[in-house]
């Protein structure tokens, strides 16, 4: 299978702190890969470099063979990378539909006009917010804001979706809804890089995982193998449990 997202020798230094040391991995076309690791291990930093929020200190990121590292975030978005944020970031002065419309109008295919309105409604229906496009974002519940953010990310019709702890903070029943949504994306052939702490979700969604600790990859492979890896257990729970 062709390598969709390819990350090679990625490095990020903040002053004296090296947050990401030498990270290389890939995501194949239509694959959902988990990016795990304890807090502060550099997962979100890697995600931020892929989406262009941060510039890498060294290393390369390519999407379908096109180098996207060192591009501005809006250029990367138009190359087909969409993301959600660790803490939901709705655009509060816009309605629910307008939030989605932003990605439609400026994403890969630049939809505008009545056609874009229909597409926004379609994306909202997909995440379970059908018919609620006219509402004020502030009136949405937490999970509905997360749904809206997913619809906004999907509206740019991305080639790669980055989910940054998208399932965090949900109740068990909401979590199941969230997992089902991501699974439907998987079924539709979307490539996803999933930063997640909830192991049930990772097991349910990812065939393959990359685990980071202190800025380095400490394990990489099929999910079940990786989660049993003594190094991974030690990183999460401390050395005594290994």
């Amino acid at each position, binding site marked *: 299978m062709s390598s969709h997202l390819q990350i090679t020798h990625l490095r990020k230094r903040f002053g004296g702190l090296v947050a990401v040391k030498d990270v290389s991995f890939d995501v194949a076309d239509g694959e959902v890969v988990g990016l795990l690791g304890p807090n502060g291990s550099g997962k979100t930093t890697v995600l931020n470099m892929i989406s262009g929020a941060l510039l890498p200190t060294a290393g390369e990121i390519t999407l379908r063979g096109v180098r996207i590292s060192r591009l501005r*975030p809006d250029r990367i978005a138009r190359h087909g990378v969409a993301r959600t944020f660790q803490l939901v970031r709705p*655009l509060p*002065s*816009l309605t629910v539909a307008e939030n989605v419309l932003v*990605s439609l109008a*400026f994403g890969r295919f630049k939809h505008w006009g009545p056609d874009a309105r229909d597409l926004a409604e379609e994306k909202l229906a997909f995440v379970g917010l059908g018919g609620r496009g006219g509402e004020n974002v502030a*009136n949405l519940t937490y999970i509905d804001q997360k749904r809206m953010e997913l619809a906004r990310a999907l509206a*740019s019709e991305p080639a790669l979706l980055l989910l940054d702890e998208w399932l965090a903070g949900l*109740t068990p029943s909401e979590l199941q809804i969230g997992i089902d949504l991501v699974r439907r994306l998987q079924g539709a052939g979307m490539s996803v890089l999933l930063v997640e702490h909830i192991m049930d979700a990772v097991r349910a969604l990812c065939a393959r995982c990359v685990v980071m600790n202190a800025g380095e990859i400490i394990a990489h492979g099929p999910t079940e193998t990786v989660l049993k890896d003594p190094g991974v257990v030690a990183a999460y729970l401390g050395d005594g449990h290994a």
Partner: protein
Amino acid sequence: MSTTVAFILAAAALAGLAVAPLFLNAYGIGLLVGMTGYVVLASAWAMFSGPTRYVSLATVAFFGIGAYTVAVLSETLPYPLVLLCACAIGLTVALIVGLSTLRLAGIYFVIFTFGLAELIRQLVTWYEVNVTGTLGRYIFLPFEGIHIYWQLLALAAVTLLLSWWISRSRLGLALRAVGDDEVVAAHAGINVSRAKLMLFALSATIITLVGAIQAPRWVYVEPAIVFNPTISFLTLIMALLGGATRLWGPALGAVPLFLLFEWLSANFPNYFSIILGIFFICIVFFLPQGVLAKIEGLRRPAGKVPPEDKERSGAA
């Protein structure tokens, strides 16, 4: 349908305003000139600052550039070319300033724009004193108040039309997204710097034109008159009072406040600045979203919050 009606009403209002000065004396026309000038200033200011929430105090920098361009060039070039030159200079300064400062956020941008206006005033003063050897300049153009008024009225119509068009365009949506969250906007594919720069330049060019068109009215200009920072503050307060994110907001704020300040400066010239300051504080405290938003808020049934919100707030 309702758009058509609104357009017809606006066109009728415009026609009414165009013939109004024929029935007024010189003082009345003077009021109309000042009022229309501020309607354009406030609307142009809100065009950029409303959606993006970048509070600019550079209004008078561009206003003064426009007025000074007319003062310098009115005897050597035909009037339409003078206006064109003013536009070009205002646009160039706006692009240079925009490219170097639109990365600044919040209070830094406010202070920078305030400083910019002061800097340009000092530069012009220095140039006039040291190079041309004279501080003030006379403008002799064969315009009466009514001619200036008609020009400003046309500019007001164009400005409102542009604002309306932008608010319905992709650019308008982009600006509102940028005003909410620049990071999210960029990740949705918006070229944030370009969107801000385009609107800043457009707004600044219109403001420059207001200065240029009004200049002949003073006959005598000097930096202290045309670079008076009160113009920046008045514009800001007017736009905020009406509501900077609405098409008619700035105009609705500009008309009553202009008349009020006109009355105050005639009757209480010594306390004018104090009253202006108090007004500023009151508007920011009591009407942060403007009068129009307040009226809409009153008309909407109060206390309607979906019940889920309360449940969620603890868990989130």
